[in-house]
Every structure is written in structure tokens, then in C-alpha cells.
């Protein structure tokens, strides 16, 4: 069964039925059964496989099928769309690359260099200079008109997935073919995510005046990347072939087929039988068991430095979690390290998350949650201090009401069910009763969470690119209310004094040092109030047949096939 996560962007998030975001790799130990496991860790490493010959077809098992390929539309929330088609076929102004051990947005080969940024008062001007050699697959130069078209489509269009940042655009000027000047009404901290991040640059000469959604949603023939879409056979596969006009390194493979295999067990069997040569599975319990058992002739890359953060979400507006002392007591009652080791230990991942900012955005993260380690004495102190006392059954009670809570997660997700069972046991020992009532993701994210009709929740937030986005989850303005049309994903009803201001600084400042300092202060405020509890970064796992060569590594933002043009296939 697919895993479900909540994607967050600055100011906006969208529910997506996605698998995992990507990560980086580091070398490690050997796996059993003839396969090799490259272990988790910080920093990245690239595995070069046995030298493969050029040409040939690579078949990849994809756990999910993208919903649509109009990447700026509401229907395009599935991260597998980005992995399979968007990253490989469309140009962006910025790419996610590793710099000094941290992931960052850096100018792509579409640009001639770093854009020029000018701040005057509250306004911001960004001047992009486009590389002269950058062209679309039909030979038309990638131009400033493409920037203008893309920006205005997102800013003014209907049914757009996320307008964050683009809604600040006052104008886009095109003084010449290769220069685009974007003026923002107010400063925008994550400005590098414009024309990048989750979006790409679109070809104005092919789309202007036409129905963009209709042209793109089922796959498109144009390309500004190393690959172009040959065919999207719905329900079955997406086939990519090289874009001969790409100005960078040309793909070495003749063809790449992403074959949709939603069942994890069947996908592993397909890898074993050679029907597919690469997998990017969600680290569910059964997948980890199979990896641990070893898969012959298969190399496994594991990375814990991802954008996927699994957390115990607390409804701060519901008894007993409306009491900060209870939330803190829970934080001291839960052994997060034990949970992380139980879930991901076989992959070499054992350290719990110490911030709500994922490792992908690690430059902005503190580690303030590291004070919350199991401490029964502290639980006693906090609970008794808040007027609670233990009953004959060992359960805390106050004013005749017991400390009973219900946790809600996604039915059928074995990893979450296991986590819930461990939590149930740990909390019982600390004097809390935990009931489990799981349901469908649609029920949780379209009804229960927005309405605040839950006590505890267990799900994953995903950062899609290396820009901090805590305001989406914890700013008081993101609490779903009637006034804001029940939008926003501060489902937890967190309202922490002083936090909104810090988060706003992160969102609007263009001074990276200032943003980082504000983010660290925000992190500390959150850890002090414990509006929820981060548990673990969900690692990414990439499996490839030994015959596949390349530099093979996981990019936590762009996915495992971010450099597919460099991959080769041997015999």
C-alpha cells in the first residue's frame, strides 16, 4: 500500500498521495544475500557501479502513477510525477544540489549565472540571465518570455496547485530574449524556489493562447531537459527517450521506462526476476525485511538526510493536549530513539528527529527537541505539577477525567501501525491510555484534521526543496477556520506566543543569515511548547541492479533519477 504524506510549501501545502521524497547516500555495510547496502547517514555519496555500456533500456518500478503532468495544476501533487517526468524533461532556474555538506538551491544550467537580486524598501527585483545555449527540444531558445509566461500562468491562473511567491509578482519584464526581470511587491525569502522548487519553466511559444492544461496533463512532447516523454500509457508506464537538442550532457541510455507497480511485494519480485532494474520503495516494514534479507545482484542506497519527517501530531485544542504540561509529559514519556531503531534500525538509521525542519532544510534546523528523552521522573513532576494524579489503574486523571487519548493514522500502513503499538506500550507505562483508530487518508486530511476532530495523529510532512516552511504547519494564521475557508495545515491548532513573527521573518527576509537565526529561534520556541513531537526522518531507499552504472545517488528534492542522463546499463 502506498504511504501518505503531507507536502508542505511555504504558505501552502497540498495533500498528496505520494511515496517518499529523496535523500542522499553514504557508503556503509554489506547486506546479506548477495546484495549490497550502502548505509544511511549525513552527507552524500555517489555510487558508481560497474562500468556499463551506453545504450539500452532501463526499466524502473514506480510505486505510484502521477495523477497528471500539468505540473502547476491542482492535480499534479503527486511527487512521482516530479521524479518520473518533470525533473527529467523540464528546465528550472534552480536545482537542488549539495554545497558544503548542505542541500541548497543553486542556479541551473538554464541560467548564465546567479540572478541579481535587488531590495528596495519592501520590494524585491530579481534579474535572471538565461544561458545562450539553452533551447527547447524544437530548437527554440529558452527565453525571458518563457519566464514571463510561467510566472503569469501561476499568478493569474485558475486551479493552480500553489501560488506561494508568485502571488507577490508585480511584473515580469523582458528587456531582451535572454533577460527576465521579476519584480515582487514584497520581499520573498525563498525567492530561489521561483521557476524551480516544485515548478519548472514552461515553453511560451507552444502554450500561449492555448489550453495549457489540456496540452500537458496527459504528457507533453516538448522538453527542455535531457529527456523527453515518448509515451505515457495510463495505468501502465511512462517512457522517456533522449532529447537530442539538450545542451548539457546527453543521456547514455536509449530509453527509460517507468513501469507502475503499486504492490511493494510484486515490485520486489519484479526486481529479483529482472523485469525492472531499479526501485525506490517506501521503507515499509515488509520492504525493510526484504532488504535486510538481501536481494541478489542488487545495490541498495539508504539515506536518512531526507525531507520526510514523521511526527506525532497533537491537537493543542483538545483535552488533555490543550495542557502544555501534558504535551511535555508525553514528550518525556515517548522513547523516540527506540521507535526509530525499531522502524529503521535494519537500514542503519537510529537517530530520532530533533526538529520539525527536515534534514533537507538542515541549514535552518536546530536540535532543541533533543532534551526530550525518556524520563519518568520528569513525567511525574509535570503531571502532578499540572494537577493530575494517578488512579488505582495507574492512569493519570484530573477533575474526574482520565488521560485517555486516541491516535489516528492511515489504515493499512504497517509502519504506522507498528509505531502506534510501540507508542501505546510506552505511554501506558507512563500512565496514559492510547486508543488506535485508523482510517483512510482522505478521511483524515479532508475531514478530521481540518476540523480538528482528532487528538493525536501520526503522519509525515514532506519538504520538497531546501527552503524552510515551518509557517505552513505552525503559524497561527494557518489554523483552518471558517474565516480562511478551512485552508492551511496547522491542524494542530498550535498558537505559540512570538512564533508567528519569527516565522514571518523566515518567509520574507532575503538575508540568509537573518532567516537562519529566525528559524533557529522559531525551532526553539516550538520545542519549548511541544505543539507536537517529531519522531524520525523517514529514510529514502534506492535499489538498483548491479548492471546499472552511473553516478547513482538520491537527491532528496529531485528524486533518485535526478541524474538519469548519466546512468548506463551493462549486460
Amino acid at each position, binding site marked *: 500500500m*502506498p504511504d*501518505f504524506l503531507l507536502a508542505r510549501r511555504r*504558505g*501552502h*501545502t*497540498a*495533500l498528496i*498521495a505520494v511515496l517518499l521524497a529523496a535523500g542522499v547516500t553514504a557508503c556503509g555495510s554489506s547486506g546479506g544475500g548477495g546484495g549490497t547496502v550502502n548505509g544511511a547517514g549525513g552527507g552524500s555519496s555517489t555510487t558508481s557501479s560497474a562500468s556499463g555500456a551506453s545504450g539500452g533500456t532501463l*526499466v524502473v*518500478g514506480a510505486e505510484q502513477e502521477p*495523477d*497528471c503532468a*500539468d505540473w502547476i*495544476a*491542482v*492535480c499534479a*501533487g503527486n511527487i512521482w510525477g516530479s521524479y518520473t517526468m518533470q525533473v527529467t524533461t523540464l528546465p528550472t532556474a534552480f536545482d537542488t544540489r549539495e554545497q558544503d555538506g548542505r542541500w541548497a538551491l543553486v542556479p541551473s544550467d538554464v541560467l548564465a549565472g546567479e540572478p541579481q537580486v535587488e531590495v528596495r524598501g519592501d520590494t524585491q527585483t530579481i534579474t535572471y540571465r538565461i544561458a545562450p545555449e539553452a533551447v527547447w527540444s524544437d530548437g527554440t531558445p529558452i527565453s525571458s518570455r518563457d519566464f514571463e509566461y510561467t510566472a503569469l500562468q501561476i499568478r493569474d491562473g*485558475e*486551479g493552480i496547485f*500553489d*501560488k*506561494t511567491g508568485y502571488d507577490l509578482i508585480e511584473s515580469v519584464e523582458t528587456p531582451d530574449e535572454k533577460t527576465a526581470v521579476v519584480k515582487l511587491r514584497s520581499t520573498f525569502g525563498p525567492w530561489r524556489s521561483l521557476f524551480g522548487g516544485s515548478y519548472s519553466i514552461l515553453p511560451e511559444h507552444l502554450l500561449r493562447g492555448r489550453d495549457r*492544461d489540456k496540452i500537458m*496533463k*496527459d504528457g507533453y512532447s516538448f522538453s527542455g531537459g535531457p529527456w523527453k516523454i515518448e*509515451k505515457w*500509457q*495510463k*495505468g*501502465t*508506464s511512462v*517512457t522517456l527517450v533522449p532529447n537530442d537538442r539538450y545542451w548539457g550532457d546527453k543521456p547514455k541510455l536509449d530509453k527509460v*521506462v517507468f*513501469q*507502475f*507497480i*503499486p*504492490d511493494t*511485494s*510484486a515490485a520486489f*519480485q*519484479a526486481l*529479483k*526476476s*529482472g*523485469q525492472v532494474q531499479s526501485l525506490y520503495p517506501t521503507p515499509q516494514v515488509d520492504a525493510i525485511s526484504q532488504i535486510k534479507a538481501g536481494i541478489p545482484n542488487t545495490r541498495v542506497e539508504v539515506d536518512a538526510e531526507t525531507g520526510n519527517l514523521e511526527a506525532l501530531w497533537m491537537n493543542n485544542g483538545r483535552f488533555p493536549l490543550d495542557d502544555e504540561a501534558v504535551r511535555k509529559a508525553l514528550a518525556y514519556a515517548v522513547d523516540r530513539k527506540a521507535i526509530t531503531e525499531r522502524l529503521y534500525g535494519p537500514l542503519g538509521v537510529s537517530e530520532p528527529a530533533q526538529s520539525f525542519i527536515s534534514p533537507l532544510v538542515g541549514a535552518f534546523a536546530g536540535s532543541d527537541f533533543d532534551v526530550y528523552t525518556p524520563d519518568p521522573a520528569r513525567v511525574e513532576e509535570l503531571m502532578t505539577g499540572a494537577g493530575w494524579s494517578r488512579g488505582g489503574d495507574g492512569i493519570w486523571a484530573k477533575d474526574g477525567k482520565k488521560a485517555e487519548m486516541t491516535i489516528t493514522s492511515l489504515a493499512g500502513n504497517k509502519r504506522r501501525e507498528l509505531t502506534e503499538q510501540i507508542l501505546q506500550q510506552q505511554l501506558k507505562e507512563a500512565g496514559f491510555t492510547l486508543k488506535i483508530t485508523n482510517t*483512510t487518508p*482522505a*478521511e483524515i*486530511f*479532508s*475531514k478530521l484534521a*481540518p476540523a480538528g476532530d482528532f487528538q493525536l495523529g501520526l503522519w509525515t510532512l514532506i519538504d520538497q526543496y531546501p527552503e524552510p516552511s515551518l509557517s505552513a504547519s505552525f503559524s497561527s494564521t494557518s489554523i*483552518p477556520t471558517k474565516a*480562511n*475557508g*478551512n*485552508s*492551511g*495545515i496547522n491542524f494542530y491548532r498550535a498558537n505559540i506566543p512570538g512564533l508567528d513573527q519569527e516565522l514571518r521573518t523566515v518567509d520574507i527576509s532575503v538575508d540568509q543569515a537573518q532567516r537562519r537565526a529566525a528559524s533557529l529561534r522559531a525551532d526553539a520556541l516550538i520545542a519549548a511548547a511541544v505543539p507536537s513531537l517529531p519522531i524520525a526522518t523517514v529514510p529514502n531507499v534506492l535499489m538498483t541492479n548491479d548492471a546499472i552504472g552511473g553516478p547513482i545517488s538520491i537527491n532528496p528534492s529531485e528524486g533518485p533519477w535526478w541524474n538519469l542522463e548519466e546512468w548506463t546499463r551493462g549486460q
Partner: protein
Amino acid sequence: MLRFALRRFAWSVPVVLIASFLLFWAVRATFDPVAKLRQGHDAGAVQREIERLGLDRSIPEQYVLWMKGFLTGDWGTSTRTGGSVSSLVGSALWPTLQLMFWGVLLAAFVALAIGVYTAVRQYSAGDYVLSGLAYVGISLPAFWFGLVLIQLVAVWPVQSLGWSEPPFYFVGLHSPGTSGFNLDYLRHLVLPLATLTVTLTASWSRFARTSMLDVLSSDYVRTARAKGVPPRAIVLRHALRNALAPFVTIVALDTGVLFGGLIVTEQIYSIPGMGRLFLQSLQAGDVFVLVPWMFVVAIAVVFFNLMADLSYALLDPKVKLR
């Protein structure tokens, strides 16, 4: 016969309408059609969509609007893919129909043969073996059996025997880039068909056996035996036709259910059919697909019920069509 068929069809219409309303009401009450939009900060977009889709009207009004659209071919737009729902359901129907056609054909033929054999050879060693296997088949969980088949028939030859490729494939109904009825298709079809038919064959063979035993113990068969009619003629000419009526009924009823009941098989074998469409839509809370999907399946169930009634009447002359 025609009048009977028309009357039964007419009775089916209110059944389908009532079922569709209940389904519509249940899905609307369970899911928020604009949930995806609510995740954003554009409250205006949510309101515009509510007005555009008529979601601010009462459920009966919405149902009437939806039914009008359904009957005129406008099944709406999927919130998950942004595509036309009728295209989505249409694309999903074809793989499911292929599986159903081959599965029902194969299972019915084999089940009937087993049923007849085990009834004629009651309490023989063959009867005991086939009956035992039938019980095993009935109790096999499809997901487990499917994965075991994949391991034994597709993975093991590659891993243990060193074959360059598996004899049978288990991802989809065709290899990427191929189509049509060819060897590649057959190599993809074997394992899902085996998974689908094992339970059907097992349960239907028990019906066929019971039905044949009933007929074989009837007076007219005893009379035929007494008159010296050859055993083969008794079974094939006199007994089988009467035994077919209940057998065909159960096959028809099960076939209707299969329309929406191949979720596990389609999931394991990555076949983009109706079952997988339902699962994807359910997980995404895509109400605009869920309602027509359920409606189509309800129509299929009612249709095959009708077929069961008609076939019963055709096969058994004692049944009066009124």
C-alpha cells in the same frame, strides 16, 4: 421470453436508481469534494469550486444534477487527475473485462468438468482428491496465492535456474511498447488468470458437483438407466442440461461481482483495471470517480442478475416465464 426480459429490465431500473442515490449520498457524506483545494490558502478558490459544482445545494438536488450528467455522458472531472471520469472508468473497464472474460471462461469450463467428473465418480479417489483441492482453492487468499505463484513460476527460474528472463510476466498485461493478442500478452495473462480462477474454479466445481448429484439421483435419470441409455448419454444429454441451470446462475452472479472485485488481483499484477481505479480514488477521496465507479459496478451486478434469471429460464424448461 422478450416480455419477461423487458419486465425484469423494468424492475431493475428502480433498483439501480435507489442504489445510485444511496451510493451518492454515502460518498458525499463521507468525502469532501474540495478537500484538495482546502489545503491551500485560497479560500476564494474553494468557494468558486463549490458554486461551480453545485455543492452548496441539497444532496437530492446534487444527485439529480449528477444523474443528468451521467445519462448525457458528462460524468464529471476527477479531482485526482483532472481528467474526464468517463475516460478514466472506460480505460479501467477494458483490462478488467479482459481478465473477467478469460477468467470466467476458463474457470467455468474447468469447474464444470471437475463437477461432472466428481459427481459421476462420487466417492472415488479422484473425487476425494479433486474435492480436497477444491477446498484448498476456496480457502486460498488471492494476495498470498498470487505472490507465491510469482515466486515459484517467475522469480525462481531466474534466480535458481539462471534463466535470462521469467517464463511468465507479472507486471501489467503487456510489456512496455507492446499491445495486441500475442505471446507477450499470453505470458502476462497466465499468472493473474491463475490467481483469479483458482478460487472461482474451486467454488464453482462444488456447485457443479452438487447440482449434478441432484440430477443424477432424480427419477428420470434412474428411468433412463433402467431403459439402458448409455451412461455417457445420460450424463451429457439428460443430466448436464438440468444441472447447468443453477451452475450458470451462480457463474452469472459471481461475474457481476467480479466487476468491482478484482482489486487484489489487479493490485498484485499491476493491472490498471476497475479495482485499482477504485483503490486510487478511495485513497485520494476522489468522489467524482467513486460515485460513477460504484454506479457502473451496481449496473453490472444488476445486469448479471438479470442474465442469471434469463439463463435459468432458458436452460430449465420447467421454469415458467411470467
